[in-house]
């Protein structure tokens, strides 16, 4: 909503600067978006009278003029303008002036045109930043010429009333009344505690007919149209509006068109009530019917577009055809044309949501619909229509007929809200007296007596005591409310167990050199094909967005791989030598499709790495994580090959207490290639919810050993397909209670090792708490271990 400060001053005398106004009105609740100073950039342009015009000796299209700018010696100015004559008074940009020229602002310098000195420039209306619409007397092409005798050397900006500050407001949806100059003026007056001057609306009604004799109105759907007023004007003379009116429209961002259209726009801006004007003779049988459109009905709107209507939409029609889409736009068929015998002003109230939905459906959001959709006061149309015909009389562009047709089946009456001074004080933390509150209410035209507040009908937002409390707070001043720290019942601030686990996961990753990533939670369904996920996989059952920004953002992810691989790819293709990333992010798993209850949202820890890393590196990362979370002993890694996007020979399932909670491995080379990752990439995915469930930070100290350990190194010859997990399981099973630890220290293939075999070497450590072990005590378990290894795995001790 744009508010020209000059227009505002008609309703309230603020006597202050624009900056002060912005600061104060902001703090009373009208949010300022921006300020534009009109004609701010135009400087040093004054009136000048053309005294002489001579041909330029060296250029056919140029003339050399002498111009009197009221400062003694006339200026010599060379120009190509076609419409000059001796005696014309024109705007002259002096040397040093800035005006719009060519592509933007330009500073006028002393110069020579084809060898003749020129000391300034005569200006067109465009060069002053305006258009012929703003100043219809200006020529389409050529210098602006003042119609009247004006003083020479006078500031043109002031003379043409170009200057104004326009303050742009963001109006919140609860304040439809503030979508008008009047509404903002009321706020301004309350803010400054100055009187608010509502315009005096008077109509002379010189027309010889009664509106009621000229038109009938029938509202078929009072739900969607609580009120419809029609008022006729005869002998309309269409022409340009006067300067003051055009200026107000232009300053508000509305293009002046002709007096009748300008009047409807003026009233809409001033009062906040959209208006429409029909040619009365285009209304068949002179009867307006407000009804729902028929299914399949069509109308061509004023902009020349054919619009398809349906039965949810409200139209204004006559007995045969729709003549306007209610609250949105008029029809071409009822447009006012030159020579219209009489016109009809419509000032009506339509249901806000209905207008909003209709405008959306027909794809036509107009200034009028934007106002209606906020929900306007049905008491407003009366003043608005009278204001419009008052302007018709002021502009002398028609004869206003007597009376009006006012159909008001759904009257809005003022309502009362009960309140108590004490409870408002209790809510705000203030100590205002009953009388102080009554005075504050008066500022916003609420009549209160300490118990009951009578609400004006233009304030539909005031329905409860809390709403009244806000009015008190706004005009008492939010900044005047004393700042306190909530006493009340003390509470302990803390994180939950799972939040602590999350912090630990992040800390561990960071300490291992892995940085935190964030990926989008929605992606394209094409991801499943890209990741080679089978067509019948349950992972393809997704929470799907019905109105996505595009296919790429249309499903909630069920796997986290795509985001991580894209991130690795981004890094790889930007030539980052390595990238170690992790993300704690959700997957969204629907329980049914379509949803009948909320989906499971499961947080996953996804680790992605490429660079100086291999499988054992990323596996080590997961091992460290489990150690930090106190669950290392419960975790097992077993070979796995059934994840389609992972390397089948370099993938381990991760299980916790026997339940699979994730996997770690190398990305399948063809998947890496599909993501343009030209190197080996490694991924681990772990269910965070399971980590949170099992993680423990309880630790118990175990006494440091007093006696030395006895160790045995064994090197085993085993077949290539034997995995160390099987060897270690046997060592642990047969090691007896003195076994302390086992350490794999070498895996060797090559000389001395037969093809298809490998040598696996362990350091096995035994220890007793209370003595140094003898050789015999250690030999026995070692023998058992070797026997079992030979028996189960065909493992031979190497000599």
């Amino acid at each position, binding site marked *: 909503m744009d508010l020209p400060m000059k227009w505002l001053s008609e309703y309230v005398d603020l006597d202050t600067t624009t900056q002060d106004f912005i600061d104060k009105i902001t703090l009373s609740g009208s949010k300022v978006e921006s300020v534009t100073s009109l004609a701010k950039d135009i400087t040093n342009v004054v009136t000048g009278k053309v005294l002489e015009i001579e041909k330029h000796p060296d250029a056919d299209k140029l003339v050399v003029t002498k111009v009197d700018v009221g400062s003694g010696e006339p200026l010599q100015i060379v120009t190509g303008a076609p419409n000059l004559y001796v005696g014309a008074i024109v705007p002259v940009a002096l040397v040093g002036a800035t005006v719009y020229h060519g592509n933007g602002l330009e500073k006028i310098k002393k110069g020579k045109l084809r060898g003749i000195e020129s000391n300034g420039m005569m200006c067109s209306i465009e060069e002053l930043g305006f258009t012929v619409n703003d100043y219809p007397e200006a020529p389409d092409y050529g210098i602006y010429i003042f119609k009247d005798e004006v003083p020479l050397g006078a500031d043109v900006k002031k003379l043409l009333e170009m200057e104004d500050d326009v303050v742009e407001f963001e109006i919140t949806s609860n304040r439809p009344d503030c979508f008008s100059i009047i509404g903002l003026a009321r706020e301004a007056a309350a803010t400054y505690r100055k009187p608010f001057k509502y315009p005096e609306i008077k109509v002379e009604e010189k027309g010889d007919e009664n509106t009621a004799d000229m038109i009938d109105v029938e509202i078929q759907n009072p739900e969607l149209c609580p009120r419809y007023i029609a008022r006729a004007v005869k002998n309309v003379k269409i022409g340009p509006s006067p300067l003051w009116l055009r200026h107000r429209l232009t300053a508000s961002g509305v293009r002046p068109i002709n007096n009748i259209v300008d009047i409807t726009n003026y009233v809409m801006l001033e009062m906040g009530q959209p208006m429409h004007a029909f040619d009365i003779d285009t209304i068949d049988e002179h009867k307006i019917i407000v009804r729902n459109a028929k299914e399949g009905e069509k109308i061509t709107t004023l902009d020349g577009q054919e619009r398809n209507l349906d039965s949810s939409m409200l139209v204004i029609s006559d007995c045969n055809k729709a003549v306007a889409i209610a609250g949105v736009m008029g029809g071409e068929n009822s447009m006012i044309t030159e020579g219209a015998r009489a016109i009809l002003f419509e000032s009506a109230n339509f249901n806000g949501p209905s207008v909003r939905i209709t405008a959306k459906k027909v794809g036509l959001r107009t200034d009028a619909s934007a106002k209606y959709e906020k929900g306007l006061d049905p008491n407003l149309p009366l003043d608005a229509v009278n204001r419009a015909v008052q302007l018709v009389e002021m502009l002398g562009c028609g004869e206003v007929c007597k009376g009006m047709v006012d159909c008001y089946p759904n009257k809005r009456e003022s309502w009362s809200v009960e309140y108590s001074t004490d409870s408002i004080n209790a809510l705000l933390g203030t100590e205002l007296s009953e009388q102080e509150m009554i005075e504050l209410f008066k500022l916003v035209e609420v009549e209160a007596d300490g118990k009951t507040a009578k609400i004006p009908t233009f304030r539909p937002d005031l329905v409860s005591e809390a709403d009244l409390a*806000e009015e008190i707070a706004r005009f008492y001043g939010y900044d005047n409310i004393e700042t306190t720290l909530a006493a009340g019942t003390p509470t302990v601030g803390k994180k939950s167990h799972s939040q602590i686990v999350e912090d630990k996961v992040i800390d561990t990753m960071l300490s291992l*050199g892995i*940085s935190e990533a964030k990926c989008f939670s*929605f992606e394209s369904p094409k991801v499943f094909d890209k990741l080679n996920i089978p067509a019948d996989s349950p992972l393809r059952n997704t929470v799907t967005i*019905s109105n996505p920004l595009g296919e790429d953002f249309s499903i*909630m992810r069920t796997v986290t791989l795509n985001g991580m691989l894209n991130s690795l790819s981004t890094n790889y293709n*930007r030539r980052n030598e390595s990238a170690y*990333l992790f993300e704690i992010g959700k997957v969204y798993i629907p329980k049914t499709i379509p949803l*009948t209850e*909320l989906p499971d949202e499961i947080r996953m820890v996804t680790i992605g790495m490429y660079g100086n890393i291999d499988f054992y590196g990323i596996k080590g990362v997961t091992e460290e994580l489990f150690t930090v979370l106190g669950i290392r002993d419960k975790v097992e890694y077993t070979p796995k090959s059934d994840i389609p996007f992972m390397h089948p020979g370099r993938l381990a399932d991760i299980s916790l207490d026997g339940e699979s909670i994730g996997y770690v491995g190398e990305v399948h080379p063809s998947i890496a290639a599909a993501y343009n990752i030209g190197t080996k990439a490694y991924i681990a995915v772990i269910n965070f919810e399971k980590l949170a469930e099992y993680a423990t930070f309880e630790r118990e100290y175990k006494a440091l050993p007093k006696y030395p350990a006895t160790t045995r190194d064994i090197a085993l010859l085993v077949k290539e397909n034997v995995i160390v997990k099987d060897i270690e399981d046997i060592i642990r099973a047969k090691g007896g209670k003195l076994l302390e630890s086992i350490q794999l220290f070498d895996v060797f293939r090559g000389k001395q090792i037969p093809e298809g075999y490998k040598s696996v070497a362990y350091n096995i450590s035994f220890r007793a708490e209370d003595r140094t072990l003898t050789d015999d005590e250690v030999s026995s378990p070692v023998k058992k271990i070797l026997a079992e290894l030979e028996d189960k795995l065909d493992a031979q001790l190497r000599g």
Partner: protein
Amino acid sequence: MKEKLAQIRDKAIQKLNDASDLKTLEELRVEFLGKKGELTGILKGMGALSKEERPVIGQLANEVRADIEGKLEAMKTALAAKAQEAKLKAETIDVTMPGNMPELGHRHPMTQVIDNIKNIFIGMGYEIAEGPEVETAYYNFEALNIPKDHPARDEQDTFYVNGIGDFLLRTQTSPMQVRVMENKKPPIRIIAPGRVYRADEVDATHSPIFHQLEGLVIDKGITMGDLKGALAEFAKGLFGEDTKVRFRPHHFPFTEPSAEMDASCFACGGKGCRVCKDSGWIEVLGCGMVHPKVLEMCGIDSKVYSGFAFGMGLERVAMQKYAISDLRLLFENDTRFLKQF
């Protein structure tokens, strides 16, 4: 004889002084003090001396021996020190070469902002609530006093999802207020950070996915003054002790009275700069006293309890705090970006 001893001493000390390594010192020890050494030679000739002379010469000889031995030790120490010095010098390295412990990882700037805010509120007695991102229209709108056909529903460009009934991606973290109030009895002090979704095309300042943080306090006798107090403390914690705040009336369907809070610009201190677009203020959050209707819908008696709520976008805070010019960087995960935080 006396002269001879003095000569030996002078000669020995002279030679010891000239010695440049431990090997020469050893040779000199043998030369002067060894079994076949000069001093021993003299002492062997003592038998020829008179009874009176013998103790005098004997004592002198011992003194000479002690002097030579003393000198020998001193030279050993000096040479050892010299040798070590030489060794250390040889071991000199270029300390300006880079260190080589593995680098640490980096916390995402959004997480840093969220952690920072969490810590401030935990210090004030708040807990951290969590809630679903796929929500129902009831929690996202109705229970927050945004009925069907309310213009706010359009303003928020909601993503709807495939469900029977109104399932959607939450457009705000506010539904967590409702979930907390339904499940917990006052006193309530919580914050709830999380992802929210709105149909905004991706560009430098918009993203269809972004983060918000919600706060809620419900107790007996909570006032708007308390809201101002808590949020002023928060602003100081986030932007620095000197931060000032101002509250502007605003409108949210689920709070009444409602406000937006601005903080004095942390970059210029309120004088006006590029960060605050010359206004001296930065818009930080929306807040207000919880609407009685919302309390009642959550089963909390609005005659007994009151409270305040606040909500803020976190991307903007991160972008302002770290001078990040393009929102897309936050979801790209380029390590050159992440390593800066």
